[in-house]
């Protein structure tokens, strides 16, 4: 039986602990929505309502369209390798009999270390003159890209760092999901004569699909909010080629003080996230077998 709470208990257990949530989450979300219909510039005390002008301007602006395209590109080419690489690593890890905790710890380390610090290190690793990557490419007589100054290469630098940070983390989830598959299912597939790739295709992949879905959604959200590696490595450049929606939001809000446009953009990011969250909840209901 749940207990009906008294007023005093509600105050202590619900109302007081909720104050920070309301003040720094709920109210700001509402205020953001409200500000996105104004032309406030942070400095002046007055502002006007401009209706949906911030949104129409935003959607029409080249900056937004480019940032949207960059975000989609960045997200797609980060998430797909993270999932594929994470899955393969997990299959490998689960086949190992010994020492697998140690390797797990190595794979997981990038997720723990601060991304700001590690991005600074990566910046030097990718340095086109003295960085070890181009040194190795030089030894191998391969082309040496201008990693941080060429627009396409710069985006891929960001993508590689993002994959590096998250692949091991994804592998942990897959490894857990794989370990939970009852061994009798593999024995049945042995008896039914499945080859190893049939086992992966018909048994492994379908059975980890709830985990895959979860990871895809979480990783998309992670990419939508990626900031640290961009600000250290490229600061959105060169020529805006690594400016994602979130980075554009930062520039609009905290560099140009166009609070109306910035909040409108943040609402757009929020709506994208909300749609993804909704899809994930719907799909995980449909795809959970056990």
């Amino acid at each position, binding site marked *: 039986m749940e207990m009906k709470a008294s007023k005093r208990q509600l105050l202590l257990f619900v109302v007081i*602990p909720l104050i*920070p949530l309301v003040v720094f989450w709920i109210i700001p979300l509402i205020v953001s929505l409200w500000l996105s219909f104004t032309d406030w510039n942070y400095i002046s005390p007055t502002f006007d309502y401009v209706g949906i002008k911030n949104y129409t301007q935003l959607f029409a602006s080249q900056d937004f369209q480019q940032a949207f395209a960059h975000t989609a590109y960045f997200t797609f080419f980060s998430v797909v390798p993270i999932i594929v690489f994470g899955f393969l690593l997990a299959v490998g890890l689960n086949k190992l009999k010994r020492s697998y905790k140690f390797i797990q710890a190595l794979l997981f380390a*990038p997720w723990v270390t601060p991304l*700001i*610090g*590690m991005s600074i290190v990566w910046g030097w690793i990718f340095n086109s003159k003295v960085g070890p990557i181009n040194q190795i490419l030089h030894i191998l007589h391969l082309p040496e890209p201008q990693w941080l100054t060429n627009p396409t290469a710069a985006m891929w630098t960001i993508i590689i760092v993002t994959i590096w940070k998250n692949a091991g*983390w994804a592998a942990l*989830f897959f490894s857990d999901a794989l370990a939970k598959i009852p061994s009798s299912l593999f024995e049945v597939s042995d008896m039914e004569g499945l080859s190893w790739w049939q086992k992966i295709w018909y048994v492994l992949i379908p059975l980890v699909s709830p985990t895959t879905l979860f990871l895809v959604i979480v990783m998309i959200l992670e990419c939508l909010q990626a900031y640290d590696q961009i600000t250290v490595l490229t600061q959105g450049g060169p020529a805006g080629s690594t400016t994602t929606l979130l980075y554009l939001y930062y520039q609009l809000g905290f560099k140009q003080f166009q609070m109306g446009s910035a*909040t409108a953009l943040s609402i757009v990011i929020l709506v994208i996230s*909300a749609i993804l969250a909704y899809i994930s909840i719907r799909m995980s209901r449909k795809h959970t077998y056990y």
Partner: protein
Amino acid sequence: MKKVQKIQGWALFIILLIIGLLMVYPMIWMLVSSVKSANEILNQPLQLIPRSFHFDNFTNALKAAPFMQWLWNSAWTTVVIVFMQLFFSSLIAYALTQFKFMGRNVLFAIILATYMLPSATTYIPSYVILGKMHLINSLIGLVISNLANVFVIFLLRQSFMSVPKGIIEAARSDGASEWTILWQIVVPMNKNAVLNATLIGFITNFNGYLWPSLLLNDTKKQVISVGLNSFSNTQGAFDQTFPIIMAGTTIAVVPLIIVYVILQKYFVQSSKTSSIKG
């Protein structure tokens, strides 16, 4: 047949070990570079064992910027934030699982909805609110604006749900107050979830960058991530300053590596907990 399997096993182990080592290569390279001379880095960046050890890189970095102050700022704000988040979240999670009250389902729906939303949406209004409280450029402001964590509420709520009703009822019939039941029975029973929330909270707050970088201006008041980045920017991307930047980065990263090595098995375990879904 057995031999083939053994060879395959070893090959797999070696491949995975190499991938694992590649994953930590940036950390190793950072540590190595932090004790090299600028010339050695420029001439032999691939060399993993320095010819001579230049520990003065560290003293120079510590002279150039208040790294210890920044680490301290990060440490104490993180500890306070994580502790307060756990405190508030435990109360809410307990109410959500053990009390009947009006709006309980609505409250949970709101928490579930905010769980996946980008925190960036709250930054501008939160900044204004902190401004009204005169807490811009203040570590107290950083702490206060981070007191709510929907993820922790969610994690604890999922875990608290598994506490058998009978235990709570037995405690109530023994005359324990709800406060006592929460802190002396429910929280100890869910120590795994609490530990997980602590570790994840520690990582995210200690490594956090964007929000503190907006909030804090004074050099003395920076947290380590923000301080480190501005230090690295002011040194400039000149080859000669490279060792001192690596030394500074090492100072910022090594505390986490140490914590990770000590608590490694808990980290691996707790990261997975964040997959628990409603």
